[in-house]
């Protein structure tokens, strides 16, 4: 993983761990998607609501942050929230 992607993964990890009740269950991985680098976030199923937030506002805010980082790095990162741990 390159340094930029490591930083983006760390960013999503730091945010997710602060939001959930079970930070140890936060897993963030990055892979090359078709149009962007995909950052995949999975959390304990009981914590999904904390990542999504009221009316999806929290997830939207994480995406806004990724958008800003993408702009600075000149490379697109998108967030994928896994709804199930399978």
């Amino acid at each position: 993983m390159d340094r930029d992607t490591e930083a983006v993964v760390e960013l999503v990890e730091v945010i997710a761990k602060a939001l959930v009740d079970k930070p140890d269950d936060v897993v963030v991985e990055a892979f090359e998607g078709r149009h962007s680098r995909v950052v995949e976030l999975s959390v304990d199923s009981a914590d999904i609501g904390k990542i999504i937030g009221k009316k999806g506002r929290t997830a939207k805010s994480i995406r806004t942050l990724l958008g800003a980082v993408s702009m600075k790095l000149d490379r697109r990162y998108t967030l994928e929230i896994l709804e199930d741990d399978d």
Partner: protein
Amino acid sequence: MSSVKWTVDALAPKIEDFLEPVLDAADFDLDYDIYAIEEKSEFISPDIAVDFGGDDVELLLRQRGELLLALEQLTLEALRIPHEDRYRIVFDANDYRMLRIEELRLSAETAAQQVLATGRPFEFGPMTSRERRIIHLALRGHGAVTTRSEGAPPQRYAVVYLKGAESK
């Protein structure tokens, strides 16, 4: 969470614990001050400001302050601040939010004058709950007009109408 104390001493360390690693990992060129808002009017009601500076302020304020609001939202969530208390903390840069409060207060007064002149309700564009709250507060003591919110978020908007003239 009634145990939250709305003081800089109580909240600044928690805000920093969240923001520091986030700003660091994001590599944003931003610094910030956390301070108590001393001169409060009923419109400028937050207790605590998190005021950003640095080269990336422009990035923070793009698209109507999208990134600024996102950082605020994530911080309030991370700190488990209940929704009814969220107006007490405001994230700002270059007085963007404070000027917006003043702008909304003035628009509310202009809308009230228009409603008085035409007798017809005035509908604002979609606003966040915090913005609508300012419209409601601005006209709360008005003798002739009153306000309410209509529609579902994020399209929810404030309406100003003549007192006694229940539209719809």
